[in-house]
């Protein structure tokens, strides 16, 4: 399965979004959180992201979903086309869509496409 890493400024935001995504996609969905700095502050940590990537790497590709700012910049630096892809998607909706798709066994390109579909979700008016 494609592994998904949620990169957020806050450890709590990343962890709870990962828990939500696993709750909806299924407990076996390979979703890991990399939130905040190593000392528990707000920010981004390369070490935490690398550890999270390793923890969900099943050899089928990895998706980084950042929240904003330094998370995006760091994720862009860590992306390796074809193996570690950055999903440019809304954080919560994208994480859930990617997790559901990954848990269903979709390949990397399909997981990215599912996450990108999150841009089209409307909460009030229909498309």
């Amino acid at each position: 399965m494609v592994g998904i890493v949620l990169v957020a400024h806050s450890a709590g935001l990343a962890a709870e979004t990962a828990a939500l995504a696993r709750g909806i996609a299924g407990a076996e969905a390979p979703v890991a959180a990399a939130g905040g700095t190593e000392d528990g502050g707000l920010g981004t940590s390369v070490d935490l992201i690398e550890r999270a990537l390793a923890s969900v790497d099943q050899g089928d590709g990895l998706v980084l979903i950042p929240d904003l700012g330094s998370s995006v910049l760091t994720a862009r630096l860590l992306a390796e086309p074809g193996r570690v892809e950055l999903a440019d998607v809304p954080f919560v909706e994208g994480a859930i869509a990617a997790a559901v798709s990954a848990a269903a066994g979709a390949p990397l390109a399909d997981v990215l496409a599912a996450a990108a579909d999150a841009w089209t979700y409307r909460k009030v008016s229909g498309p």
Partner: protein
Amino acid sequence: MDTVLDTAFFVAWFEDAAKVIRLRREDLTRLDAAIGDADHGVNLDRGFTEVRKALADWPPASPVQVLVSAGTTLIRRVGGASGPLYGSAFRQMGKALEEPVTLARFAGAFEAGVVAVERLGKAAPGDKTMLDALVPASRALAQAVHEGLEPREAFERAARAAEEGTQATIPMRARKGRASYLGERSVGHEDPGAASSALIVASLVTVAGGMPDGMTDDVADGADGAGG
């Protein structure tokens, strides 16, 4: 007869930049408190302190190694947006640098570093970012090379251009980063990223001014004179 910028010069650059950032940490944080999240001074101080430590623990053997080590350390240790941005700048500068390092080669590599910031941040001059200091500094360096100036004078011009660029961010409306959410309310404040960039460029002047005559070598000799 071109002056060679050796390993010791590059190490001294980061040493001085680290010292200046420590001294100006509160000023940078105050600028960031106005339009950002008030962590720029603290983040950069932590990053450059780690750079000093890394350069002391694993003494680099070449200017390229100094830049790559410093860049990698900043990416891994800063935690805010300035880490990946400055880190990419120094790493890319290192990758683009040809040795022995003449002023012309330095200027070319510096420009490559600035381009890395533009690409990663998807920003341009006028967006009220560090690029408003770095792009004018890079242009000033290129012009100084064109005029055949010595490093010290070239760095003085670059530092002046970076400082003027920083001042020019005051009336700008931010288009990148947290400050961009403020819209018109970001106007009237100096950009902290441009301010720190100007400090880092100014360190080049300090270090070049402190270069003893013995460090002026002929490139044709292939002399590095690395102090290590």
